[in-house]
């Protein structure tokens, strides 16, 4: 589940719980408020009666009678004054029942208060029916529920918008720093703008991490370049010495052959360092990609270069490339090297009288595909993931090549942001698809 969804769900849930609690406790609250308000009213009424008595004397109410009593039409309220024993002293507010002459029994909240007037002690009672106190409960509860639900709905929308805004930097960090990042990370990373410190911390950590990866990669590149480069001079010296030695005639045949063997070994060393150097130069972006290449011409050039190799095993090659196809912003020499290596492999690992076919295809999604298929010995499925690794010879039955041919292919492909797909079956052949995405 998305973080923003989770947040909104949690916030809404907790809000609903609080609102429900509030609505459920509303009767109690209303009762509390109502009873306090009732107490207040009763006391105010008491004050008025006491002040009236003080001003006009108790007879103002009694009118010569011994007791006084009065109630409203539906007996919601009543007031009574009666004489009591002089030593009695009461001042309370409590709920109690009163029975009327017509046998009507009602629940009241009653204020009882004793006061003196002249020599007499009087008890004042003011009552308010409790049913009238609780009458607002139900509608209040209903309205409160409506309003709260409406409020929750409103805040839900605000929460949704706000959490979206809050989470936005996270999505941006993931998008810019982690998703679809092509190695090596060449473009400098921009800080994602956010006022949330957690996000900026995450962002900075990621930038730091990517920098470290870049640094490690740069070190490896530098190391490869340095080693290969430093090897070139000693190789040069050895090679020249052997060449001079071989030119010193007369040499016995045996000695000549030994020198040749040494030169062959040196040649191998030279090609390995040369290939490593080439890889590191591509990785260091020392090649400019501004050539416009016609694949048909490119393949014709390559075939002219290595076509003669087909003869040794009588391999037939068919070239079916549309003459209009054009590749822009590429490096001709590197593409030459890429397809040279693929075709060379197709020849090398083919069977006598085998076939190689080179075709192209323009896909609808702006992808241009070049396909090289052979009828060679094929690659085992469990070896396929490793064929582009350096010095990994999957066809190790015989010592052919130094194991860098496909590593070079891969490096050139990455540099040109070209996809390579391989399909292969032992004994049936191998197909390489090179996909140029515009």
């Amino acid at each position, binding site marked *: 589940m998305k973080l923003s969804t989770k947040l909104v769900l949690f916030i809404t849930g907790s809000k609903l719980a609080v609102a429900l609690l509030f609505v459920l406790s509303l009767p109690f609250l209303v009762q509390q408020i109502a009873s306090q308000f009732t107490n207040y009213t009763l006391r105010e009424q008491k004050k008025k009666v006491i002040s009236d008595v003080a001003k006009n004397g108790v007879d103002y109410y009694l009118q010569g009678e011994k007791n006084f009593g009065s109630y409203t039409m539906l007996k919601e309220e009543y007031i009574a004054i009666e004489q009591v024993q002089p030593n009695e002293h009461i001042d309370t507010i409590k709920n109690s029942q009163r029975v009327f002459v017509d046998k009507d029994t009602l629940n009241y909240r009653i204020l009882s208060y004793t006061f003196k007037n002249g020599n007499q002690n009087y008890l004042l009672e003011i009552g308010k029916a409790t049913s009238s106190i609780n009458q607002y409960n139900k509608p209040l509860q209903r309205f409160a529920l409506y309003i709260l639900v409406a409020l929750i709905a409103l805040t839900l929308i605000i929460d949704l918008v706000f959490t979206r805004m809050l989470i936005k930097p996270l999505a941006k960090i993931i998008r810019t720093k982690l998703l679809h990042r092509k190695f090596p990370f060449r473009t400098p990373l921009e800080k994602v703008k956010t006022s949330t410190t957690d996000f900026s911390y995450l962002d900075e950590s990621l930038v730091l991490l990517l920098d470290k990866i870049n640094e490690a990669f740069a070190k490896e590149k530098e190391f490869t370049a340095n080693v290969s*480069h430093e090897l*070139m*001079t000693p*190789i*040069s*010296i050895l*090679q*020249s*010495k052997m*060449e*001079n030695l*071989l*030119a010193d005639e007369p040499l016995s*045949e045996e000695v*000549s*052959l030994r020198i*040749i063997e040494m*030169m*062959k070994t040196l*040649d*191998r060393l*030279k*090609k390995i360092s*040369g*290939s490593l*150097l*080439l890889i590191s*130069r591509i990785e260091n972006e*020392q*090649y400019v990609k501004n050539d416009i290449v016609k694949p048909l011409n490119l393949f014709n050039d390559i075939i*002219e*270069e290595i076509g*003669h*190799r087909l*003869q*040794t095993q009588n391999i037939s090659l068919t070239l079916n490339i549309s003459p209009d196809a054009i590749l822009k912003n590429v490096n001709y020499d590197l593409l*030459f*090297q890429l397809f*040279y*290596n693929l075709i*060379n*492999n197709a020849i*090398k690992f083919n069977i006598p009288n085998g076939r190689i076919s080179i075709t192209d295809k323009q896909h609808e999604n702006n992808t241009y595909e070049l396909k090289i298929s052979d009828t060679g010995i094929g690659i085992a499925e469990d070896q396929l993931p490793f064929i582009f690794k350096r010095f990994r010879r999957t066809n190790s039955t015989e010592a*052919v*090549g*130094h*194991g*860098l*041919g496909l590593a*070079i292919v891969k490096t050139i492909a990455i540099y040109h942001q070209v996809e390579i797909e391989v399909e292969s079956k032992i004994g049936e052949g191998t197909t390489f698809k090179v996909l140029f995405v515009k």
Partner: protein
Amino acid sequence: MKVLIIEDEKTLAYEMEAFLKKAFYLCDMAHTFKDALEMLGINQYDFILIDLGLPDGDGLDILKQTKKHNPEAACIILTARGNLEDKVIGLDLGADDYLAKPFYLLELQSRMQAVARRKFNINVELLALGEFNIDLQKRLVLHPTAEIELSKKEFDVLSYLLLNKNRVLTRMQLSEHIWGTYADDDYDSNYIDAHIKNIRKKLNVFGTTDWLETVRGVGYRIKHR
């Protein structure tokens, strides 16, 4: 022909000298930037071989100096830097050729010959080879009765052997000259043999090719006059 070898690796410089001496070049050597400038100040050379990676200066600066003081000299840049920019800058500054280390001394000598032919207008006429004549300019093999068609690579092999006649060329020297330094995955291939076979087959129709010798285990040689 007088050659100045500017190379800080003394061993390599001596090997170059030894090889070129056999081809009757007169060689001077300079191992530092300073020495090189001094020698260029005193002497005039036909060829200057410049290693770019000198300890006390940039070889490209020597190239600039040479163009001032000894403009008719042919300059060949030698470098282990393998930097493509160096090649472009070097050729822009007037270098006649560029060789990346490690190179075969034979290749160096052949490049020097080619530069000399171009620079000093040495017109190579038809080179006779048994019953055949080779036209290097038009890249043709001629026989009194016919014009023989060789593929581009076959002609390259034949002419390279011919230009270095009476010398055994190894398969590696030939390969590197014909195919250059494409990072080839093969280090022991017999593709040169296939070419030689084709050349013999095509020429044998018209005449004998016993001048083209196979030197067992080593390579090939054109033995001629």
